[in-house]
């Protein structure tokens, strides 16, 4: 579990995060949603420790990240998996080498053991016959699968995904969303997904927090989000014509 208490982050005079308090639960896919510029990416980067917060605490388990010494932070990061928006695969490495990278860095496994684990996770993300290909030789959807495989290869306790289905066609996007949810349950990990895709919200939003101008404006799950009275949330949810039409149909049926 990740617990966030009163998190503040500014860049110069501009306050991006204005006191966010929430929890991300283990075994669930936790979604951070909000419009562009609402502070989602900054929040995610604070969770990852890429940005230092000015005020507030982030607890991984029982310990606040600010109270951890360098060794504890290093150990924590070894247990984090991250799927970046663009995949962030290492260009100079093949798919197999990319996925093997965390094992080479943090374990003392022999090469055949590492290869066995790499093939296991590549199978898990339904990626076959791509081991020796370079990231530039595979499609965007496949790159996301490799990124997920790399993120889970070392059995992380926390999985973070930044816009995991951006740039993908709707069908592949749903496959990636489902994969993330299945892996979260299978590995019993805390997963935090940063997205503004309403399809993801509907598919995998077991816990959703909605950010609006750096504040937490609403939190709940995907069954509650369509029933909320919060105007900011409804404006965001029904900003798409498709969802407006679905709402109109539902209203007619009722």
């Amino acid at each position: 579990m990740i617990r966030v208490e009163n998190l503040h982050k500014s860049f110069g005079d501009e306050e991006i995060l204005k006191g966010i308090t929430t929890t991300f639960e283990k075994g669930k896919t936790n979604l951070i949603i909000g419009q562009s510029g609402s502070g989602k990416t900054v929040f995610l980067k604070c969770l990852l420790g890429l940005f230092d917060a000015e005020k507030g605490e982030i607890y991984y388990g029982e310990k606040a990240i600010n109270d951890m010494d360098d060794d504890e932070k290093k150990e924590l990061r070894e247990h984090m998996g991250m799927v970046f928006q663009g995949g962030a695969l290492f260009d100079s490495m093949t798919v197999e080498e990319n996925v093997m990278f965390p094992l080479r860095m943090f374990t003392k496994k022999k090469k055949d053991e590492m290869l066995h684990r790499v093939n296991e996770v590549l199978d898990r993300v339904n990626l076959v016959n791509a081991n020796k290909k370079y990231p530039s030789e595979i499609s965007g959807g496949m790159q996301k699968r490799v990124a997920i495989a790399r993120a889970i290869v070392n059995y992380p306790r926390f999985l973070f995904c930044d816009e995991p289905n951006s740039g993908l066609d709707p069908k592949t996007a749903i496959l990636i969303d489902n994969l993330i949810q299945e892996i979260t349950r299978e590995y019993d990990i805390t997963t935090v997904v940063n997205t503004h895709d309403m399809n993801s919200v509907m598919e995998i939003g077991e816990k959703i927090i909605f950010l609006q101008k750096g504040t937490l404006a609403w939190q709940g799950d995907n069954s509650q989000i369509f029933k909320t009275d919060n105007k900011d949330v409804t404006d965001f949810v029904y900003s798409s014509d498709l969802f407006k039409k679905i709402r109109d149909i539902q209203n007619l049926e009722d």
Partner: protein
Amino acid sequence: MKYLADIGSYFIMLKQVFSRPTKGSVLRELILKEIDELVIDSLGIVIFISFFVGGVVAIQTALNISNPLIPDYLVGFATRQSIILEFAPTFMSIIMAGKMGSFITSSIGSMRVTEQIDALEVMGINPLNYLVFPKIIALLLYPFVIAISMFLGILGGWVAGVYGGFSTSDAFIRGLQEDFISFHIVYAFIKTFAFAFILATVPSWQGFFMKGGALEVGKASTNSFVWTSVLIILTNYIITSLLLS
């Protein structure tokens, strides 16, 4: 003020390069890869430029000293002094600032743009140690490149001088041996080590701290060449003043 901040960020980077080391077995592979990309891949251009510039130095010297009072071995002497003292260590390093430096900046800059550096950080890896330290170690072999440049520059001078009819082989070789001060070789290699450090770290710094997209990677490569060249020239002046004045 911005320049002070830039200089500060360079020294902060250097501190981080030598902290939180990468796992030994991975580091060994990285160093070998950097030796291949930075040192071995540079040999072709170094060999080509050194040989022909050496030849041009010999021809220019011969053509500009057609005076019977000047000894005929001066062609070899001038070629040796020019190549060993300045051309091989300093000007070859400026050429390498363009070849090697822009490669380092663009490769690290591309990693920054595509979040690969963020990925390293999230994994708990010190990206500066992972990316820059192997380059510094690989460029400890840079003096060998410069030694090859010195040899080929002088060889080029000999070939152009002798086969171009500007000098005899005996006179050229006598010129190479005349007034030879072995400390000049030491001086040349001392500054080569300093330039190697600049070549490894300044382009890395430019690439690592760049912000923006693909266009900025190009700008960072240009800045990298400018900063590296300026620092090489300044360092050359300082070392020459300290060691030869």
